[in-house]
């Protein structure tokens, strides 16, 4: 368990106190106690301070979780923090000057909620959902998008079974930004079949921030942000760790991860963490056949080192992720005739459904992503300053099914499509907290350099420079909370495009402005209402400007337009949340109007030597999206919980002559889960939960025939069942065992959000077992 020391004392303060405090015991320790998972205040917590020099001092926090201890002597302290419903926990800290410390406590398993959805109190303009600890455990080892889809309103947009991208409110790729360890994840994000390179085992929390309003994370993400936030480092002496393993029956995936973190009492300022993991999976099985060449193989390592002082912190983070993703051989087609044949046949050909194998052959993707980050934070009495410098390197290599005909060249086994992207980012953030008033200012510089290393280019070589600045202010007035934020992003592209065997240079400059406001009001202790309004602009992405070429999986030609205008989105979101002992509910209703929405417009057929291909051009249009996300949780008895979540979306393209539907928008869906979580004295029965989940996904009826390659698949429903058990071997050693069966009834279905829905059925029954040991 770990906690972060948030704010230190002003530098002058420190100097003064250090001089005066050596012999006098007049130091003050104050702060707040909160829930480790949702950040909520823990009222009436007991704190017990012990040090070698002084006697025990006990204090209680107030109803807001605030505590304060005066008259402390300088020295090392252990603080035992206890709260009803939480494990008592011991924290170690060194007191040289008065300081503010925030303690975070871990809840029992039975107190954990399945999906915690809460509007962050600090920023009324932001709507944030977090993957709960229980869900994190249950989905450990799954791809990012497959984990995030447990959050209502978030979907997984897939290409086959092992390439998935998070989709928020109907948007993915260029309209979603992933923030990994505080850094904008820079990859070939534009591609539908380019999954984010995120370690599936990393010791992190996942959050989804909806709308473009979270300006501190970036501009232009009209759909929202995915935050991958490493958990706080261990600050007390000793070494902790975690071993996780899992096995999945369907694709016979086995995976393991090891995390170690520690701190030494000899150098209490230094904390570290190191992680490593791998996954290996073979062909997935649909109810009636195996899908050949759908295995995956990935590895990741990461480490971080941090030096903590009262007034500053320095941290270095490194991560490397490599993956090899097999692509279903039956989804590789030569032309439109082949695609139509694939759509017409009920099941893939025999040769593409031969059986199980771990071997990954062509076609496949080979991806490497590396992140290095250095961060320096300076804490003042009520404010903090943070600098982050990062470098990312991304290599994407795609190997086609067919090798070159020329035997000599084929023997080289080189990728048909290969891109490398190198990017640097420098960021500065300043935060000032004046109790009821909170400011944040920041700015950044970045560059991206994209190199095409293959003959197939699809997108060109480019360099880009980005500069941005933002400001946020949050104000609390009684039961009201107001927020306002603004951000400006400047982007400059320098494009080197191959035209008639010669490089031609193009230059573009874009500015994008984001403005967001929000107000929330606590109607009572139990319910809260908030309204968020924002305006956001997004500059066209490189593929929208310059893509040129054939999409193999969809047999279509795609052409960029370097004259595209930037998008402008107007978004309103109304959130109402109510929480009582037996009942939680949250309803989010939103509308988003996007002027100059950039989309692929069908533009007849182009004749090529492989026949005629449908052609799509990137164009500006206007679009309107409306949606409702509903979450309800009932606790009729202390052992039982019933939850409902549903997500509804209407998405239109507003042409002058007709109203067409936007393509690839999630169909409406409903999910129910019944959880039994006995709370007994009996140690054997305690600490476990059993759940049953039912999901119904409607057929996507809102589609545009002119754009769809095939009609959307039928509605489907899925059942899943699971068991989670927590073990306590000693005070230090705990374990978790999870067992679940997805697609319990082995239903045959296809999903509209899977780009390979033309070729094969979805995965059949999958039983998964995972075990983790914390020490």
């Amino acid at each position, binding site marked *: 368990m770990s906690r972060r020391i948030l704010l230190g004392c002003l530098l002058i303060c420190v100097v003064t106190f250090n001089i005066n405090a050596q012999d006098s015991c007049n130091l003050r320790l104050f702060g707040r106690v909160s829930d480790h998972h949702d950040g909520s205040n823990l009222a009436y917590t007991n704190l017990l301070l012990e040090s070698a020099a002084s006697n025990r001092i006990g204090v209680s926090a107030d109803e807001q979780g605030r505590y304060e201890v005066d008259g402390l002597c300088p020295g090392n302290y252990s603080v035992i923090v206890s709260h009803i419903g939480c494990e008592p926990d011991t924290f170690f800290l060194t007191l040289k000057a008065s300081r503010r410390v925030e303690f975070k406590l871990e809840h029992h398993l039975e107190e954990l909620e399945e999906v915690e959805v809460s509007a962050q109190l600090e920023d009324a303009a932001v709507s944030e959902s977090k993957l709960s600890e229980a869900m994190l455990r249950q989905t450990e080892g799954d791809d990012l998008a497959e984990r995030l889809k447990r959050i209502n309103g978030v979907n997984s947009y897939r290409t086959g079974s092992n390439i998935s991208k998070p989709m928020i409110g109907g948007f993915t790729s260029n309209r979603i930004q992933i923030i990994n360890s505080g850094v904008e994840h820079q990859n070939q994000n534009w591609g539908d079949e380019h999954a984010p390179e995120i370690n599936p085992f990393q010791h992190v929390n996942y959050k989804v921030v909806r709308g473009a309003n979270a300006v501190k994370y970036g501009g232009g993400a009209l759909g929202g942000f995915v935050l991958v936030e490493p958990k706080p480092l261990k600050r007390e002496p000793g070494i902790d760790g975690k071993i996780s393993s899992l096995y999945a029956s369907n694709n016979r995936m086995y995976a393991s991860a090891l995390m170690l973190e520690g701190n030494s009492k000899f150098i209490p300022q230094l904390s570290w963490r190191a992680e490593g993991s791998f996954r290996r999976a073979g062909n997935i099985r649909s109810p009636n056949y195996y899908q050949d060449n759908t295995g995956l193989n990935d590895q990741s390592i990461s480490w971080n080192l941090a030096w903590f002082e009262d007034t500053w912190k320095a941290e270095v983070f*490194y991560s490397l992720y490599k993956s090899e993703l097999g692509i279903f051989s039956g989804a590789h087609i*030569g032309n439109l005739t082949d695609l139509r044949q694939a759509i017409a046949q009920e099941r893939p050909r025999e*040769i593409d459904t031969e059986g199980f194998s771990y071997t990954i052959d062509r076609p496949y993707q080979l991806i490497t992503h590396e992140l290095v980050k250095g961060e320096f934070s300076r804490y003042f009495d009520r404010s903090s300053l943070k600098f982050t410098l990062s470098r990312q390197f991304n*290599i994407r290599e795609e190997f086609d099914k067919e090798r070159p005909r020329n035997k000599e060249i084929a023997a080289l086994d080189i990728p048909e499509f290969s891109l490398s992207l190198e990017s640097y980012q420098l960021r500065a953030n300043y935060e000032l907290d004046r109790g009821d008033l909170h400011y944040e200012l920041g700015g950044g510089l970045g560059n991206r350099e994209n190199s095409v290393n293959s003959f197939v280019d699809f997108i060109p070589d480019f360099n880009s*420079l980005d500069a941005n600045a933002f400001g946020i202010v949050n104000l609390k007035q009684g039961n009201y909370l107001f927020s306002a934020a603004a951000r400006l992003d400047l982007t400059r592209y320098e494009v080197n495009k191959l035209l008639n*065997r010669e490089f031609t240079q193009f230059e573009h400059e874009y500015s994008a402005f984001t403005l967001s406001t929000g107000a929330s009001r606590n109607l009572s202790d139990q319910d809260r209402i908030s309204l968020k309004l924002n305006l956001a602009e997004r500059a066209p992405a490189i593929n929208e400007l310059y893509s040129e*070429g054939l999409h193999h999986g969809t047999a279509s030609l795609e052409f960029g337009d370097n004259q595209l205008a930037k998008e402008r989105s107007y978004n309103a979101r109304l959130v109402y949340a109510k929480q009582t002992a037996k009942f939680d509910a949250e309803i989010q209703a939103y509308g988003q109007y996007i002027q100059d929405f950039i989309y692929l417009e069908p533009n007849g057929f182009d004749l090529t030597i492989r026949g005629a291909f449908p052609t799509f051009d990137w164009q500006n249009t206007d679009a309107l999206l409306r949606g409702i996300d509903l979450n309800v949780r009932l606790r009729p008895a202390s052992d039982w919980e019933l939850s409902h979540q549903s997500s509804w979306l209407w998405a239109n393209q507003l042409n002058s002559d007709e109203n067409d539907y936007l393509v690839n928008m999630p169909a409406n869906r409903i999910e129910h889960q019944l959880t039994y979580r006995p709370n007994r004295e009996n140690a054997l029965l305690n600490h476990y939960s059993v759940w049953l989940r039912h999901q119904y996904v409607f057929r996507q009826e809102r589609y545009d025939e002119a754009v769809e390659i095939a009609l959307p698949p039928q509605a489907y429903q899925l059942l899943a069942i699971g068991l989670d058990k927590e073990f306590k071997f000693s005070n230090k050693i705990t374990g978790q065992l999870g067992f679940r069966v997805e697609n319990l009834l082995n239903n045959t279905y296809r999903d509209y959000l899977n780009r390979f829905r033309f070729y094969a059925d979805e995965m059949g029954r999958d039983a998964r077992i995972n075990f983790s040991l914390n020490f």
Partner: protein
Amino acid sequence: MKTKFISNLSKPINLLLLMLVLGMAACTDDDDDSVNNQPGVSANEEELITTVVIKVKDTLTDVEQTFRWTDPDGDGGNDPSIDTITLAPNTFYEVEIEFLDESDPSDVEDITEEIEDEDDEHLICYTSSPQTMLNVLRTDSDGTYEVGLESTWESFTAQNGSLKIVLKHQPGVKDGSCSPGETDIEIDLPVFVQ
């Protein structure tokens, strides 16, 4: 197609981070560059087929005609140029087909040889519409199945129509029929029998 490494404006950032990176087991960007890092040149460039040449010889008169389907700038861009095949009625022809990469006019590549080398993985299918316009029989063999690089055509009564020519890549799945495998080429040429 590698471009220069450092953008001018971000140089200080690069240098600073470089120092950071050098101390670590950083991965580098020269993994695969040895093969294809010269601008505009790539080892797998030869894969492109831009042109199909059909050589038609009247078996009685030995008069040879050549028809071309060509799209030298590849997918998109300019439209392909397509010849109309003109044949005499009720005549037998010996036909050879060639595949070329003419994307670089100064260096035309003949892909036909590579298809001959792997003739057990390739099949060329000819479909006349209407069916009663032309009868095409493949005359060459990979040892087991026909290939289609050589064929005889028999024309019937005077009429207009089209001929579809499909090159299938069928590694491991060739069974003499057109359905398995992937389509490498699918073109239609107008035909006048007059």
